[in-house]
């Protein structure tokens, strides 16, 4: 891992408002190739909003996001995918009536991966979907739908991958397994941002975390350090610091 290399993603002073509510209030951070960055914070602190802004679902009301040196302002989501940004969803929304294989085929065909797209068979094997490859996505259980969502993202060969609560709902064995997969992806040079409530999981896989509260960064550094900062502890009082 090489967190020292130049960042591929720069988020600077981003503001996102919903009505009068400031979901993001001057958020700044960066992420480098090969780095796994954790975004943590209580519910409503703006983690998912940050992911939605970076992946182009929301246009920011202020500030700027640059990826690979180019601004992302006003670029449509599918173009961001072509540039090398992809994400998973907290609640995966696969194409329910299509088979698993067809779900992946769409992303392989339309993702315009900069390098050669991955092999369908390899993806199905690596993410334990081979047995259900020809079943409609509607038949999958929640964990399998999450894996399918991840594979849909990986099929486009992203250089920046945003994982929104991928681990929630997985059992301990699955957690260890997916942690290794995520680390392997980072070692291949992918920049990865992880939003997660499971602190053990975050501690295990991330190089660095940003602790957010009320749309702002309140801490940046190692999670082990973060949990000793009074301000961070205060924010997490109320049971968020579970698991």
């Amino acid at each position, binding site marked *: 891992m090489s967190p020292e290399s130049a960042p591929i993603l720069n988020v600077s002073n981003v503001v996102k408002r919903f009505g009068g509510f400031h979901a993001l209030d001057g958020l700044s951070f960066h992420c480098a190739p090969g780095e796994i960055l954790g975004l943590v914070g209580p519910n409503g602190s703006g983690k998912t909003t940050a992911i939605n802004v970076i992946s182009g679902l929301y246009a920011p009301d202020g500030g700027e996001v640059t990826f690979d040196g180019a601004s992302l302002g006003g670029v449509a*989501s*599918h173009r961001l995918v072509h540039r090398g940004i992809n994400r998973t*969803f907290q609640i995966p929304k*696969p*194409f329910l*009536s299509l088979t698993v294989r067809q779900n992946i085929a*769409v*992303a392989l065909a*339309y993702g315009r991966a900069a390098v050669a797209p991955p092999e369908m068979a390899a993806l199905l094997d690596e993410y334990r979907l081979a047995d259900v490859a020809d079943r409609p996505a509607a038949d999958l259980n929640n964990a399998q739908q999450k894996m399918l969502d991840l594979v*849909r993202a990986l099929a486009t060969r992203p250089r920046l991958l945003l994982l929104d609560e991928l681990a929630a709902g997985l059992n301990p064995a699955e957690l260890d397994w997916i942690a290794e997969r995520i680390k392997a992806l980072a070692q291949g040079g992918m920049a990865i941002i992880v939003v997660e409530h499971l602190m053990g999981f975050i501690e295990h896989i991330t190089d660095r975390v940003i602790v957010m509260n009320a749309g702002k960064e309140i801490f940046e550094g190692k999670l082990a350090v973060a949990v000793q900062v009074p301000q961070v502890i205060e924010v997490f009082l109320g049971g968020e610091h579970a698991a």
Partner: protein
Amino acid sequence: MPSAFKHTLFIVAPLLAVFAVLPGVYENHLLLFNFVIFLILAQGVNIIYGFTGYLPFGYVGFFGAGAYGFAILVMHYQAPAVIAVLAAGLVGVALGLLLTPLLRLSGAYFAIANLAASLAVLHFVANPALENITRGPYGVSLTGTFNPTLAYSAALAVLALTLGAVVFLKNSGFGLALQAVREDAVSASMAGVNVVRMRVIAWLASALVAGLAGGVYAWYVSVFYPDNVFSGDFSIFAIVFALFGGVATISGPIVGVIILYGIYNLIGFTTPQYFQLIYGLLIMGLVLFLPAGLVSLATRRGWHVP
């Protein structure tokens, strides 16, 4: 054998062959022609509703616009019928382009806005103030181009084109991506699919098909009124036929047209209100008991339906 070829060989070719031969052995040519028209319209609905999820409740707008496009070219420019049919297709596409903003609406809002749009086009065309151009409510008479045999062949050509488009959608990555957009537009965009462009292409394709169908219809009947070619029955029948068979398949809408339009003609027109009653009950039964169409009887058993 690639499946697109199989579908063409075993579904499209036999269907076209049957309808090419039938006029020689069956006398009611108008009925055969209407079957072909409804096959085209049901497949046109299939393209937009089956593959993208937009319910075109005013689909007849394109059909009527196509019929009037044909009529205007023949009346005012003495165009040959084949050119006028092509122009009818373009009129359909032009109306489709004009209505692309409707694609911003979802669910029932789209369906209602599309219905309103078709009625707006009807009242526009039928307006006495436009008598010099469209003949307003007084209808058009195109005896100069009257040639049912050729018009029937043209209808078959349009049907072939439409079926070709559906076979392509059923067997291509493009069709798969359209279905992905239908299932979830956000996830589709995150698979790299340009959601807006896909929807517009499907919308214009179904508009083209209905415009061409309207053109050949005008050619075949040669005398018609705005209320004939903008009749809401065209939209409803096309939707119900497609839905009854099962959308997002090639065979579903075909089966739907053959069974339901067959029943329609067996019941006959002598007592329209009894017919309307039976038809209404049939539609209600369809939605309540077979919402995914006849093909779902097969797919539920795990059989693949092309």
